[in-house]
């Protein structure tokens, strides 16, 4: 594992347990269509890929640059809407996907540049407030411009034929699973997220990434060495925004739909924040661990609690059926989050690497 990662980033996992966990997760995601057949498991696997890449792009900002942004879902939304509007307007064509990306990625980077120029010159708390305001304004705008975005209903669109579920690539099932356009779409999402993650890992371990870490630790000290802290922060913001937009485009392609709830919701912002904190800020690998655990909990905790609640009810145990009622899954997710922050202040990856907590 170490030797595989060294040429890519010079930043190996530095923990046997972490290396094993990462290998298992990557293998499970790579073989997900065949290991976990069915629409829901594949949907969860795609969501895990998407949230890993999205959280990694946010870790570049929060963990490596020390910048708190609430506009990350806005950039994610720009990518989603870019693909959605393009495919909706031009039809299910590959060049529409290309055009959507060609417009969305620079738009996200440009907007990040403008926000950064206006607000990263001052304290980062001011930047956080500005991003919150801009993200809220963008969400309202997306909702109001219904002729373009579909408003609150969002936009459903068709994808090119090769990606459609009805397209069968191999007439006979492979390992009991039909290989269709949906399978191909999953592998496009998976491969793109792997490439994005490796690119981000390379960025944070480049000389530029080291300067970001220095700025996060002490901006004045970094300035005294001759580094323009504002320009470095802005560039990090632009890279993170473009990466988030790319992930948003993948999400839209997977869902064949874009709407405020799936791309601009503030709850997605909270999800990313929790994933980065639970996984371990400033580690990149934390996005893989945190993203996997969080999306699995989000999708299966409710069902697990339902089973526990029913079993407890049948056994005649008092209180437990109410306590583990599936409707209370968010409460338990919150408890899990508080416990993980309490016991692993440096995140799961920080703990596995032998850091504090």
């Amino acid at each position, binding site marked *: 594992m170490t030797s595989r990662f060294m040429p890519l980033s010079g930043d190996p996992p530095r923990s046997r347990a972490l290396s094993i966990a990462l290998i298992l997760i990557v293998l499970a995601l790579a073989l997900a269509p065949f290991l976990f057949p069915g629409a829901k498991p594949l949907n969860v696997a795609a969501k895990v890929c998407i949230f890993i890449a999205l959280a990694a792009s946010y870790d570049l900002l929060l963990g490596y640059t020390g910048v708190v942004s609430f506009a990350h879902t806005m950039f994610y939304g720009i990518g989603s809407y870019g693909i959605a509007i393009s495919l909706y307007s031009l039809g299910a064509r590959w060049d529409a996907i290309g055009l959507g990306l060609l417009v969305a990625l620079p738009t996200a980077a440009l907007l990040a540049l403008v926000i950064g120029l206006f607000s990263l010159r001052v304290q980062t708390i001011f930047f956080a407030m500005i991003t919150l305001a801009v993200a809220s304004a963008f969400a309202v705008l997306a909702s109001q411009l219904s002729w373009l975005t579909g408003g609150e209903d969002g936009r459903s669109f068709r994808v090119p034929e090769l990606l459609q579920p009805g397209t069968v690539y191999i007439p006979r099932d492979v390992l009991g699973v039909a290989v269709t356009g949906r399978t191909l779409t999953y592998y496009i999402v998976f491969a793109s997220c792997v490439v994005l993650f490796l690119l981000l890992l390379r960025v944070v371990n480049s*000389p530029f990434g*080291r*300067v970001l*870490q*220095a700025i996060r*630790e*002490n901006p*004045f*000290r*970094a*300035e*005294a*060495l*001759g*580094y*323009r*802290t504002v320009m470095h922060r802005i560039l990090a913001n632009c890279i993170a925004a473009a990466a988030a937009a790319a992930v948003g485009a993948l999400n839209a392609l997977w869902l064949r739909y874009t709407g405020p709830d799936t791309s601009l919701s503030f709850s997605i912002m909270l999800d990313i924040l929790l994933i980065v904190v639970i996984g371990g800020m*400033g580690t990149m690998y934390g996005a893989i661990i945190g993203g996997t655990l969080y999306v699995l909990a989000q999708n299966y905790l409710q069902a697990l609690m339902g089973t526990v609640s029913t079993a407890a009810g049948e056994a005649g145990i008092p209180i437990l059926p109410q306590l583990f009622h599936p409707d209370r899954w968010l409460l338990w997710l919150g408890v899990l989050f508080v416990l993980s922050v309490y016991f692993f202040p440096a995140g799961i990856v920080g703990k596995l690497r032998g850091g504090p907590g």
Partner: protein
Amino acid sequence: MSELLTLSGVETHIGRYHILHGVELGVPEGQTTMLLGRNGAGKTTTLRTIMGLWRASGGEIRFGGERIDALSTPAIARAGIGYVPETMAVFSDLTVKENLVLAAREGEMDQTRLDWIFGFFPPLRKFWLSRAGTLSGGQKQMLSFARSLIEPRRLLLIDEPTKGLAPAIIGALIDCLKEVKRRGATILLVEQNFRVAQAIGDTVGVMDNGRVVHAGTMAELVADEAMQQRLLGLSLDTHQ
């Protein structure tokens, strides 16, 4: 000898506090100038004002004849001024190597210069790939110091490098400073330890209440015990 750095009537306000009241100071090229004075006299603020970390509210600062008081801190650093703060200023999350690479222009370190630095500070070679946060206080100070030496600078601003260090490490620092000086570097050094100041200083500025109240050669100050008493409230004899 011409002055590489000149401060003329420099005023600095921090918030509502008026810290520097018209500092006049010249740092001759190729010499080591000691900035002495009691705690709170304005020595650190003077260095931070030169670096642009506090903005001068009045007067002018010239470096190599050019005004630098309106420049940003990165621009001042790139003009050739290295700064070693007093607080063991390392980047804890980065390794010793990464700390030094950050200070090297274009990220390339000169191996000969690196070996020269290792000669003075062997622990830096030993802990080359260790996180700086895990080093001892003395090792952090060595690293902070080494970072300012990894590239030749026209001027080094060093703030109390011996503060809180063991005598053996102070010795290594003095040897290193002497060697840097021998190579022709210009240094402005804030130091509380008069023995250290005497060992390496050529010229001296004594500060009190945000002003330079005395400027002259170190030899004059060392020879004149009454002046030491009057300016610094000490004498070499009581500081042995």
